[in-house]
């Protein structure tokens, strides 16, 4: 049916080589028989893409939300400027004077002489100046494209300055934008360095019983605040969130938690895997987007700890919260039932948000990620069969070993026992298994494909990012940004679900779209009585 139409225009417009490549990234879904999709490959030059770069994934996504690290962009001014406060990571410092550098943009602002003669001295001076001004606990350095080419060794500079200061952790990221094929490579690089330089450096632990980390939750629009509150209500301690509303101190003792919960699998699974190998902490996939999924995820935590009082408390909280979400769903559903959505964004949200739409009675017609890998589509079971290409090979894989003193066999035994009972660990089944038969799945959608999709299917709401927003809206279809939430949110947890229901109901039913056509646009011709003399005819089409 319509997929053929899309396919047909793609075939007619794209040069043959482009068509052949793109065809492997677009398909009709069948959850019963998940097919291989092309993902995490190079964007074709000249294609208008949603994707950004490795630097953006490293500095912007993973490290951006942490408030007490002085993040210095080593490079010309632009990269630092554009990543300055634009991702909406909210944060709540402990008090009025606690460290918060998130409102600042630090850059070495490289000039041509640095490109010619190297920028290491400039970088050292910049780190020194940052240290003298702020005396922060940590300084991180992010390399932009030119840095790799001119051969600045940011890691050597970091080591030297760290040794010099003694009381400030300094570490670098080789996250030049040309590495990898998208933001995704930057996530991996960020994971590696945080694991190497921070996690495990503080062994202190509280004596609370249920201690977990939440991974891949970045506190866009206050999502992490909602989840912090929810966990507290249930009596579960959040040791660290990676990295919404976080402090570097939280990362330092994240290894003392008993369970890792993964929200965004794409951006953070590396840290979870490495923590399991080194410290024995099991991880499980959760999703706190949507009321149903939030309840399910909380129950998973209860099941893991097998504590009757915790389980009872979780059920109480769910019951209480579901009253709110059920009531809201009943209120907004009449306006949304039967409507349709498309989601093309990120590395997990295009999957997670489908649950929220389902709760509104809306159907997902098509979805795809911007920078995910095959496992995020087809499930982790395909991991062994993913070919490592040249672009992935240049991203370092850390070799991690068991930490004999701190490895917890007890947690591993618990995991094994629970797995016998059917609980899932270390797994993510991916987007495709959950999507309907006949829905479309398209990876790294191009601008051209997006416009054709909208034309052919006319969804009631399209979810993507800022670069797509106004083009789609010019076509008369509301676009919900799922990176920035259109400056709204939070959308996580139960409170977030209520916000989202309300927001989508507003978007799909607003009167504004009815104003687009001017009243005279249907009049074909009018003889002009006044302007232009007797014989002039003004035509309005």
């Amino acid at each position, binding site marked *: 049916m319509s997929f053929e139409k899309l396919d047909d225009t793609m075939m007619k417009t*794209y*040069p043959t080589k*482009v068509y052949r490549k793109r065809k492997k990234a677009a398909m009709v879904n069948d959850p019963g028989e998940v097919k291989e999709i092309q993902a995490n490959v190079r*964007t*074709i*030059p*000249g*294609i*208008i893409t*949603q*994707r*950004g*770069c*490795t630097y*953006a994934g490293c500095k912007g996504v993973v490290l951006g939300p942490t408030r007490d690290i002085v993040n210095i962009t080593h490079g*010309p*001014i*632009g990269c*630092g*400027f*554009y*990543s300055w406060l*634009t991702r909406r990571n909210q944060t709540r410092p402990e008090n009025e*004077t606690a*460290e*918060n*550098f998130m409102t*600042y*943009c630090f*850059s*070495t*602002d490289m*000039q041509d002489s640095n*490109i010619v003669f190297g920028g290491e001295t*400039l*970088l*050292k*001076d910049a780190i020194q*100046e940052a240290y003298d001004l*702020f005396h922060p606990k940590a300084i991180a350095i992010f390399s*932009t*494209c*030119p840095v*790799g*080419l001119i051969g600045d060794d940011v890691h050597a500079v970091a080591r030297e300055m760290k040794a010099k200061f003694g009381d400030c952790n300094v570490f670098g990221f080789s996250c030049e*934008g*040309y*590495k*990898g094929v998208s933001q995704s490579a930057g996530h991996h690089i960020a994971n590696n360095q945080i694991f190497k330089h921070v996690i495990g450096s503080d062994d202190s632990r509280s004596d609370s019983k249920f201690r977990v980390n939440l991974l891949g939750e970045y506190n866009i629009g206050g999502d992490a605040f909602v989840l912090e509150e929810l966990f507290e209500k249930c009596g579960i301690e959040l040791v660290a969130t990676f990295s919404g509303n976080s402090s570097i101190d939280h990362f330092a003792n994240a290894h003392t938690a008993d369970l890792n919960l993964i929200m965004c699998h794409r951006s953070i699974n590396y840290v979870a895997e490495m923590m399991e190998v080194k410290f024995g902490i099991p991880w499980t996939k959760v999703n706190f987007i949507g009321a149903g999924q939030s309840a399910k995820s909380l129950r998973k935590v209860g099941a893991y700890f097998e504590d009757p009082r915790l389980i009872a408390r979780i059920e109480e909280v769910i019951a209480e919260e579901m009253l709110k979400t059920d009531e809201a769903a009943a209120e907004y559903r009449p306006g949304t039932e039967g409507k349709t959505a498309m989601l093309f964004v990120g590395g997990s949200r295009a999957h997670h948000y489908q649950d929220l739409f389902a709760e509104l009675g809306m159907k997902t017609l098509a979805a795809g990620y911007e920078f995910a890998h095959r496992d995020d589509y087809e499930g982790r079971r395909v991991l062994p069969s993913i070919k490592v290409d*040249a*672009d992935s090979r240049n991203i370092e894989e850390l070799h991690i070993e068991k930490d004999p003193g701190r490895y917890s066999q007890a947690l591993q035994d618990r995991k094994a026992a629970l797995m016998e009972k059917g609980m899932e660990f270390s797994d993510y089944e991916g987007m495709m298994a959950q999507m309907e038969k006949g829905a479309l799945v398209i990876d790294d959608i191009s*601008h*051209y494909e997006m*416009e054709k999709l909208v034309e052919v299917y006319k969804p009631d709401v399209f979810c993507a990012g*800022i*670069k797509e927003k106004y*083009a789609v809206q*010019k*076509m008369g279809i509301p676009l919900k940004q799922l990176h920035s939430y259109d400056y709204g949110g939070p959308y996580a947890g139960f409170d977030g679900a209520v916000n989202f229901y309300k927001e989508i109901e507003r978007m799909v039913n607003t009167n504004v779209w009815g104003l*687009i056509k001017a009243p005279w646009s249907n009049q074909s011709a009018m003889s002009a009585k006044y302007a232009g003399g007797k014989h002039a005819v003004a035509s309005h089409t």
Partner: protein
Amino acid sequence: MLLRHTPKEIKDRKALTINPAKTCQPIGAMYAALGIHGCLPHSHGSQGCCSYHRSTLTRHYKEPVMAGTSSFTEGASVFGGQSNLLQSFSNLFAIYDPDIVAVHTTCLSETIGDDVSQITQKAIDEGKIPAGKHVIYASTPSYVGSHVTGFSNMCASIAKYFPEKQDYELDQVNILPGWVEPSDMREIKRLMSEMHVPFVMFPDTSGVLDAPQTGFHQFYPKGGASVPDLKRSGASSFTFALGKFSSEAAGEELRKKCDVPYEVMEVPIGINATDRFLMKVSEVTGCPVPESINDERGRVVDIITDMQQYLHGKKVALFGDPDILIPLTEFLLAMDMKPVHIVSGTPGKYFMERMKEIMGDDFETGNVKNGPRADMFLLHQWIRNEPVDLIIGNTYGKYIARDENIPFVRMGFPILDRIGHSYFPVVGYAGAMRILDKMLGAIMDQMDREAPEEKFELVM
């Protein structure tokens, strides 16, 4: 406090830029290219830059901003980006069918040393550029200058490529508006029409970045300078290059290529700069300034005389681009206001020289700086040492304004949190009125908010 770590005490920095008052070249080149009808900007480098530039322009205009990228990966960074650019040309023309592709470089392709003009020639030789289509190119390394430099470089490339030299002269002038908003370009065009002056303006982003909602996404919106107009600009009798930093290079290219004389003038912001511009237009074209414009001018002066008490002596901190700051400072001084702290990240000696001329004695007592580390961190420190009554600058100023409780007027690039800039000009007398309205609104709103109850005024 949002900027809680900014100390009052100022220490010299030689390496660390904090909260920059500038950004990088390619975004300016992209903006300029969008002011040509049917033009698709293309970023030759890795895709992150392009994504950032499109996102920032989109947030500023709330409009689609289309641009291609060569999507470099590590291989291209090592072996050069030729094949990426050749592929890009084929794909852009096949899929997006632009009349013109305007290529700009990024730090990456510049550092590698890609020769875009040679690659373009190769593309032409290999038949990758369809007949009748154009490719223009500007080199825009971000480790030189700022976003303004990139804008200027792309304008110069346009001026180098399209205008055709003629042995006759047309009764028309060229207007290079400089880096101003679509609303400003629209306003300058209106003034020219009021004066009955035939003109070609480029770039012209009105009708592109303020496109109407039609229920249809026009990939190449109606606006923008057309190719025939650009070609004809070579036969114009004169070029007004508004803004030394953004337009001089293009004016010079037009002169070199087509012998069109030019004058660099200030962007017509405020009364004096607008007066000078219109006088010069009148002098060159012989078209008198009509009474309608005279009345507009009179209305601005009337507002100032009426509201003088709220303006006189008010201290102002400004940051932004030199071509805007220069006439704005002049305007503030004309109203007896006191611009005391001024920064621009864009380097260039002329800025300080001209500021000195305009400010006279106030230059020595005030704080003025541009170039490296002339950033908003420094501006904030100056403000903490000598408080002001008003801040004027781009959206990032709102963090300082909130911390220090200072009225704030948004002007400059980028404005990410309000809409007016696309639709209401700051140039010309109409623009002066808008600036006044905004400044008075900000200052008087604060008076209303903070006046003791017994001093709360009904009439002001």
